[in-house]
Each structure stands twice: as structure tokens, then as C-alpha cells.
């Protein structure tokens, strides 16, 4: 679905953060904010909820731990029991290193795959960007416009008042 956006371009992260507060305070819904680096405090200002990735990471870690213990106990203890170096067949202390490594392996890869999936990152031929300067040195606030762009003059005024150095518009396919 193609939509038109008003893009407020900011030069500084602090100006941006104040602007986010005021724009939201004026009852305008912000579509997204693009920045060249993670701006601290933007989550609270935009009302982004805390990520649940740590919970997912913990879950993946537990899966890894359970899998590694099952693998070692099943293979050496039940499927093909052998006495090696006089150790018991289920030698739990000797299983700690592999259990630890697989816990880390599952945590890391599970979480990273989840991150790429939920954030919609995958290799693609062309990336539509709101403003190419937002990966360089500009902070860009995108606000969705209504059908006939009637809200544009008011938005421009609001963004300029709050320190935007430019206000542009752009047509994009909405995710």
C-alpha cells in the first residue's frame, strides 16, 4: 500500500528527542524515526515497549541445555554404554563443557534468527529508504499523511517549530 509521508529532518539527537515529545504531545502519530545510530531515550519518547528478546534468549538457552544433556546422557549412558577411563557412563561433570557450549550456541543463534525475522531483515536486491541521509548524519521523523495531504502545512509548521531543519514529503510503500 503506497502512502505519503512527511519527513522532518533533524540535525541533533537532543533536538529530535524534544521534538518527539512535542509532536506526540500535539496528538500527532509518528510513523517511525530513522537515525544513524541508536539514540538513547528514544524508546521512552516514542513509547516503544521493552523488547522481549531476552525472554526468547533464555528460552533458547534452556532448549540448548536440555538438548545437550539429553544427547550426552542418551548416547553414552543408554544407546552405547562404554566405560571410558574408569569413569561412570553418565559422567555429569565431564558433560558440563559441552552442555555450556551448546547452551551458548542455541541462545545466540536462536536469538539472532529471531531478531532478523521480527525486524524484517533479509538479503534483498534493493532497499527502499525514506531519506538516504538517515544512515549518514541526519535524524528523520516520518509522519503518515492523510489522503489529500491536507495535514501537511500544519505538520510542517509543527516540525519546523520543534527544530526540524527541513520538512520533505515522500511516497513509500507502507510495510
Amino acid at each position: 500500500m503506497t502512502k505519503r509521508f512527511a519527513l522532518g529532518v533533524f540535525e541533533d539527537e537532543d533536538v529530535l528527542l524534544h521534538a518527539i515529545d512535542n509532536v506526540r504531545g500535539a496528538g500527532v502519530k509518528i510513523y517511525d524515526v530513522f537515525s544513524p545510530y541508536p539514540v538513547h531515550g528514544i524508546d521512552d519518547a516514542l513509547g516503544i515497549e521493552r523488547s522481549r528478546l531476552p525472554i526468547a534468549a533464555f528460552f533458547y538457552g534452556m532448549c540448548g541445555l536440555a538438548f545437550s544433556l539429553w544427547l550426552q546422557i542418551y548416547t553414552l549412558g543408554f544407546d552405547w554404554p562404554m566405560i571410558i577411563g574408569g569413569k561412570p557412563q553418565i559422567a555429569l561433570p565431564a558433560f558440563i563443557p559441552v552442555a555450556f557450549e551448546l547452551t551458548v550456541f542455541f541462545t545466540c543463534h536462536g536469538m539472532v534468527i529471531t531478531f532478523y525475522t521480527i525486524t524484517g531483515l533479509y538479503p534483498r536486491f534493493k532497499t527502499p529508504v525514506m531519506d538516504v541521509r538517515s544512515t549518514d548524519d541526519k535524524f528523520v521523523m516520518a509522519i503518515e499523511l492523510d489522503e489529500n495531504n491536507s495535514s501537511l502545512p500544519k505538520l510542517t509548521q509543527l516540525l519546523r517549530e520543534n527544530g526540524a531543519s527541513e520538512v520533505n514529503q515522500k511516497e513509500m510503500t507502507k510495510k
Partner: protein
Amino acid sequence: MQHVSAIREPLITGGKTLHDVTQDICYQVEAKPNIRWIGAMSVALFFLGVFFYSVYRTLWYGIGEWGLNKTVGWAWDITNFVWWVGIGHAGTLISAVLLLFRQKWRSSINRAAEAMTIFAVICAAMFPVLHMGRPWLAFYVFPLQNTLGSLWVNFNSPLLWDVFAISTYFTVSLVFWYTGLVPDFATIRDRAKGPIAKFSYSMLSFGWTGSAKAWSRYETVSLILAGVSTPLVLSVHTIVSMDFATSVVPGWHTTIFPPYFVAGAIFSGFAMVLTLMLITRVVFKLEDYITLEHIALMNKIMMVTGSIVGVAYITEFFIAWYSQVEFEQYAFINRATGPYWWAYAAMMTCNVITPQLVWFRRVRYSIVLTFILSIIVNIGMWFERFVIIVTSLHRDYLPSSWAMFSPSIIDIGVFVGTLGLFFTLFLLFAKFFPVINMVEIKSILKYTVDNGPTYTGNHGHSVPATTYSVTPGVPASAPVTYDKHD
């Protein structure tokens, strides 16, 4: 430009703006390779050729091409393996441990250090795989059912723990490194001129746009990855040391091996980071990003870990005497005074005595001296592994099988060859990838200038609008309309 605190040196010098950072780092990727890069690449490729030839000889004629004998069955291969793995550790230490400890100075060096980790682990992995003699059967090390029955791998063996440790370490480091690269690839993509560059960096950047929610998740991921990588990096070298420590060979059967090996790994890793960063900062003109302060800080870490290693050498001697085990005592006396005394002397000089020079401010801040010192430490740490492995093996419990080891030309070829492999990969990285983490540099830039942050958060109410002066010459409300997907 001033920095916030009077007692702290600025992290980035030269009064950089956000755009300057992008320009400076992307310049290397966008410009044509310079003559020094081509020269270095030619040398690296020559040694890569040496590597392929030596590997071909090793695989075609067998491990007999190496200088191993019935007594010394592990020599250069395992020495090189442990040495390379150790070098890899500094990268993860910088990217994970220093991130958790909020050490902002790591930002200038973490990208290159992580790349070094990846390439060093690749070089390290070559040795155990080649030592198998028949690498096409390498899958035997994974817990797969045997075709002859349900025979499994032995999870009690430190050598198998190594398989899990190294493969986890490699893949986790790779993912950590790549996730950090994604936003920087997006910057290069958005500046790219040619169609090939546009296409390749678009593929590499995974469609990153830098939206606030993506950044929020990205930071969560980085922090958790750092959190799991920190114990991981310590576990890897601990497990590598257990290859020796869990055996009964005098000289290897040592309880202090895990912390001692980890300290040694950080020691040699930082030496290699210094070697590479000193070259990179000159070749790519990055003096404003990798300042003398960075070099001094790395030097200090190198000195601390070097001293820990020194204490470990002395502790080994003390424990051999204190335990009253005559085999242990002999192993250590033989190490220092036996036929390999020169290797022991080289190890002591390079690892214990030379790093103490870092106490002098003049040495710490000197580029030339630091460079020489880092090379000496790398040599010393190679000798440490050689001493541990060869001197312990060449004379153990059975005097009738005592023997000496000398490397064959192929042994030397494989080792020098992995250096070629390492530098080929590193040079390719330095040319086509951003060598410095632009995102992190940009995010710390504001904290190194006097007009620091002013935003303190809206505590549930809107902030009164500040009056901003409208810059003349900037289009005020005349909207610029772009085409779709321009």
C-alpha cells in the same frame, strides 16, 4: 572541540562531525585500492600459495611430511592451533567484555579486532583438521551415528569438548560481528554510486533502514550477545588448556592451566590487535580514531596479562617443587635447562621481561616501540605454546623413548602459510568492509564534546517548545517530492 572531563583524553580527535565519520571510514571502501594495499596483498597471496602447497603435500603424502615422531606426536600443529586460537580471543574480549564494562574506547578498534578473531579461528581450525590426516572424515568428530552401529563420540574427552567450543566460538563470533556490520553496510549502500556496489551492499545490509524499533532490538541483541560471549571466550581457552591439563603428562597436568591460558590468550591477542591497528591506522590514515590513548590502553592490558602469565610460569615451578613429584620437578628443570633451554629463554624474555617496559610512559605512547613490542610478544607467546607442548612430550616417563623434535620444511610452510591466509582475509576485509564501527563512533561523538546531551526525558508531560532559529537558505515548507524508491 573540548572534552567533558578534564582528566580524560578525548576518544576521537580532530573535531569530527557525524558526516566526517562517514566520509573518513567509507572513503577506504569507496576509493580504488592504493599501492600499499596491492603490495601487501601480493605478499599475502604469495604466502597463501605456500599454504596451499604445504597442505597439498600434507594431504597427498600424509602426516609423515611433518617432523613429528613417535614421542613428539603433537608439535608445531598444536602449537600453531593454540597460538591462533589465543590471538582470536582479544577480539571477543574487546567486543564483549569491554562492552559490558562500558569501555567506550573499544569502539574504535572492535570491528577490526572481531574480524581478527574470525580469521584467527579459521587459521586455528586448519591445524586439528589437517592433523587428522584424512580431513574428509572430519565429520567423525560430530555426534552422528556410525554406519557400523550406534557408536557415538566420547563426550568425556577434552578433544571433543574442543570441537564444540571452537565451532560455537566461531559461529557466535561470526554472527556477532556480522550483526554489528549490518547498519554500517546500510551507510555504504546509501552512498554507493555504481550498480555493483549498490547491489552488493544492499544484499549485505539486509535492508536495514535504522528505524527506532530496529535500533532498540539491535541494542538488546548486542548486549545479550556480549553477555553470552563473555563466558564463552573464557570457556574456549579453558577447554583448549584442558586438552593438556586433564592428561597425566608431567608439565601438562597442571591445575592453573585454564586461567593461565586465558591470560596468555588475551596477552597475545592484544599484541596482535596492536600490530594490526598500528598498521591500519597508518595505511588508512585513521590517526584521529585510533589515537595514542587507545594504543596506551591496549598496551596496559597487554602488560597486565603479560604479568599474569609471568606469575603463572613461576607458580608452575613452585608447585612442581612443593608437590614433591619428581617427574614434575624433572619436567620443569628440563624445560629451563634441557635441550630446549633456548625456547624457554625466548619465552621468558619475550613474555615476562619485555612487556614490563610498558611501565614507562614513553614506551606506552611510542608507536615504533609499541609495534616492536607487539611483535616480540607474538613471538614469545608462540614459544610459550611450543615449550609447553614439545618440552613436556619429548621426555616423559619412559627414558627409552626420549626424542627430539625438529620441524620439516612442510611444517614451516603450513605455519607461514596460515599467516598468509590470515593476512589475505584481513586485507580483503580492510578494503571492502568498514574497518571502524561507524555506528558506535557516531554514538560516542557527542559525549566527547563540551555541548553534551540536554534531553532528560519527558516525565509524562510534554516539554515546552524551545524556539529554534530557522536556518536561512534551507527550504522552509516547500516540500521536496521524491519519486517512489528513488
